[in-house]
C-alpha cells in the first residue's frame, strides 16, 4: 500500500508565546519545532500499516521553507521511506491554497491512502485534509481513532460524545487522524542515522493566490488575581452571595 502522510512543522506548545513585531506571526526566537501532534499520530499509524502488511511505501510531505526539512527527516527517522518538501517561504494561512498545492503533488502519486492529522496544534483549522479530498474527488473520513483494512476497503472508527461510529470506505481515500490511534514511536538511533540517507525531494509549491489573510494576532488578556474570602465552612455564605450578586452565575 502506498501511503502519503502530510505533516506540518509547529512550535512546541509548552512555552509562553510572544507575538512578532509584525503583529501577524508568532516570534520564533528560541522556539523549538516539531511535527504537529496529530500528524505524528498519522505518521505512526502509517508506519504500523506498512509493518503489518510488510509491504508498501510511506511518503511524508510538508509545505514550507527549508526549515521543514528537519521535520521531514524526523518522520523519516521514525521510519518513513522518503520525503517531499513543497517549498514555500513565508507564513501561509489560507488552508485552501495549501490544500491546492498538496493536491497538485498528490494527484498523480498513485497513493492508496492519504493521511493527515485531524488538525494542526498551532492554528487548528482542521480543514486541509477535507479540502484535499474534495479537490482530488476522493472520499474523506475525519478524526478516526482506528483503521483496519479488508482488501481495498478501509474500516474505521470515530469517537463521538459517549458513543462511537464505524465507517467504511473504498480506497483510495483521505483520512484525518485523531489521538488514540497510536502513540508515535521514538526515532531509534539507527533510524536517525538512516534518515540522512533517505531521499528528500524539494520542489516549488504550486500555491494559488491566497484569498485569506491573517490580520492580527493577540494574546489573551491577563487574568486578574483571585480573591480569598475566608476559610472553611464559615466562608460559604459569603461565597454564595458573591456568586449570586457579583459573578451572577448562580
Amino acid at each position: 500500500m502506498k501511503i502519503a502522510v502530510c505533516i506540518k512543522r509547529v512550535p512546541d506548545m509548552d512555552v509562553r508565546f510572544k507575538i512578532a513585531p509584525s503583529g501577524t506571526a508568532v516570534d520564533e526566537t528560541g522556539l523549538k519545532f516539531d511535527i504537529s501532534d496529530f500528524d505524528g499520530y498519522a505518521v505512526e499509524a502509517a508506519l504500523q500499516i506498512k509493518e503489518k502488511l510488510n509491504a508498501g511505501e510511506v511518503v511524508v510531505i510538508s509545505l514550507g521553507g527549508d526549515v521543514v526539512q528537519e521535520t521531514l527527516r524526523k518522520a523519516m527517522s521514525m521510519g518513513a521511506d522518503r520525503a517531499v518538501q513543497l517549498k514555500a517561504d513565508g507564513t501561509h494561512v489560507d488552508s485552501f491554497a495549501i490544500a491546492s498545492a498538496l493536491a497538485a503533488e498528490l494527484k498523480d502519486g498513485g497513493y492508496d491512502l492519504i493521511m493527515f492529522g485531524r488538525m494542526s496544534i498551532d492554528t487548528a483549522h482542521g480543514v486541509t485534509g477535507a479540502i484535499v479530498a474534495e479537490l482530488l474527488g476522493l472520499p474523506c473520513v475525519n478524526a478516526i481513532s482506528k483503521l483496519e483494512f479488508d482488501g481495498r476497503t478501509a474500516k474505521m472508527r470515530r469517537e463521538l460524545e459517549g458513543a462511537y461510529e464505524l465507517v467504511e470506505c473504498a480506497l483510495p481515500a483521505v483520512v484525518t487522524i485523531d489521538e488514540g490511534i497510536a502513540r508515535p514511536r521514538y526515532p531509534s538511533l539507527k533510524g536517525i542515522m538512516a534518515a540522512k540517507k533517505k531521499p528528500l525531494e524539494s520542489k516549488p509549491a504550486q500555491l494559488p493566490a491566497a484569498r485569506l489573510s491573517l490580520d492580527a494576532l493577540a494574546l489573551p488578556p491577563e487574568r486578574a488575581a483571585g480573591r480569598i474570602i475566608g476559610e472553611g465552612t464559615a466562608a460559604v455564605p459569603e461565597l454564595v452571595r458573591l456568586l449570586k450578586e457579583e459573578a451572577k452565575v448562580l
Partner: protein
Amino acid sequence: MATELSTPTYLPSPQLTPREGDLFNLDAALTEEERAVRDSVRAFVDEKVLPLIGQCYVEGRFPKELIAEMGANGYFGANLPEEYGCAGLNNVMYGLIMQELERGDSGIRSFASVQGALVMYPIYAFGSEEQKRHYLPKMATGEVIGCFGLTEPDYGSNPAGMITRARQQADGTWILNGAKMWITNGSTAQVAVVWAKTEDGDESGKSIRGFLVPTNAKGFKAKDQKGKLSLRASDTSELVFDNVHLPADAILPKSGGLKSPLMCLTQARYGISWGALGAAMACYEEALSYSKERVMFGRPIGGFQIQQVRLADMLTEIVKGQLVSLHLGRMKDIGTFTPQQVSFAKRNNVNIATDIAREARRLLGGSGILAEYASMRHMANLESVYTYEGTHDIHSLILGQAVTGLNAFGG
C-alpha cells in the same frame, strides 16, 4: 593590506537562536542529528523512566522492564559500528545519550555505560571476530547483558595488585579463581568480562588479560550487595570464581596488561563526564521550576537574591561542564583525546554535579528530602559516581602528574 582572518566553523547550527532554558545556545554547537538523538532519548526518559524511577529507588530495584526498549532504541554501545548491530553514532551523540539517561537516574546510565563501554567495547577492541559476531549484536539489543569485573575487595584504586588468577591448563583451557566487588549488573548479567592475572609473581599487572565468563559457569557466584544508600535503582554485586573452568577461546585475544581494562575505563569515564551533567541538569531544572512556584513571604522564592545566586552558580557550572565534554567529544571523534583529558572532565563534571544536586536539594526545602522530587536521589547517586571509575582523588593525582611530571601515587 589587512590580514584576512580565517572563519571559525565550529558551530554546526549557527542558524539557531537560543531556546528557552538554553541561555548559552549550546544547541547551536550540535548538528541536527546530534539534537535529534538527544531529543529522542530525552522523550524516552521523560515518558518511560521518570514516572517510575523514584519508586524503583525507594524499593531498591533496577527497572529491568526498560532494557528491551533501550536496546531496540539503540542505546547500548551506540558508538560502535553498524556491522555489529550497533548504531554507529559519533562520540558526541554517545555522550548526549549518557547525559539524557542520567537525567533520569545514575543507575540507568550506569547500566548503559557498563553494557556499552565496559563490556561491548572490550569485546570490540580486544575480542576475536567470532566473539564480536557472537556477542555484540545480542548485547546491542539487550538480549544479552554484561558486567565488568576489575575491582576487587582489596584492590580498588590499585587494580595492578589484583589477586584474581587465570591458570592455563595443558590443553589450553583456563581455570579462574578469585573475587570481584562493586560489580554493576553482576547478578543480572549473562556474561562477565573478568580481568585476571595469568602469571605468578606479577606485581605490575603486565600479565592481566580479559576473559569472557558465562555467569552460569560452574563455580561462578554473584551476590547482590545489600544496604546501599546510593544507586539504589541499580544492581551491584560481588562476584566469586571458585575453580571456574573456561574454554581456551574465553580469553580476549588482543587484551594485554593493565592498559586494556584502563582503555575500557577511559571510554566509560568519557560517558560519565556527560552523564553527571544530565543529573545536574535534572536538579537545576527541578530547583528552577520550584523556585518560581514556591511562595514564601508573599513572593516566589526565586525572587530572593540568595536563591538566584544558587541558580546562577548551578547554571554556570553546567554550561562550563557541557563545553568541556563537547570539546572532549569532538577530540575523541578525531582521535586526539587523551586519558588525562578524560580524567579532567570526569573529575570536574561529577564534582560540580554533586554540588549542584546538594544546592538544589537545599533550595527545595523540606520537599527536597522526598522521593517525589529528584534532587536528593541524584545527590545520593552522585556520591557513587564521584567514587567509581577512578575516584575524584585519583583523578586529581592523574592531573597532578600530567602537569608536574611527578608521580604522586607512590606516596
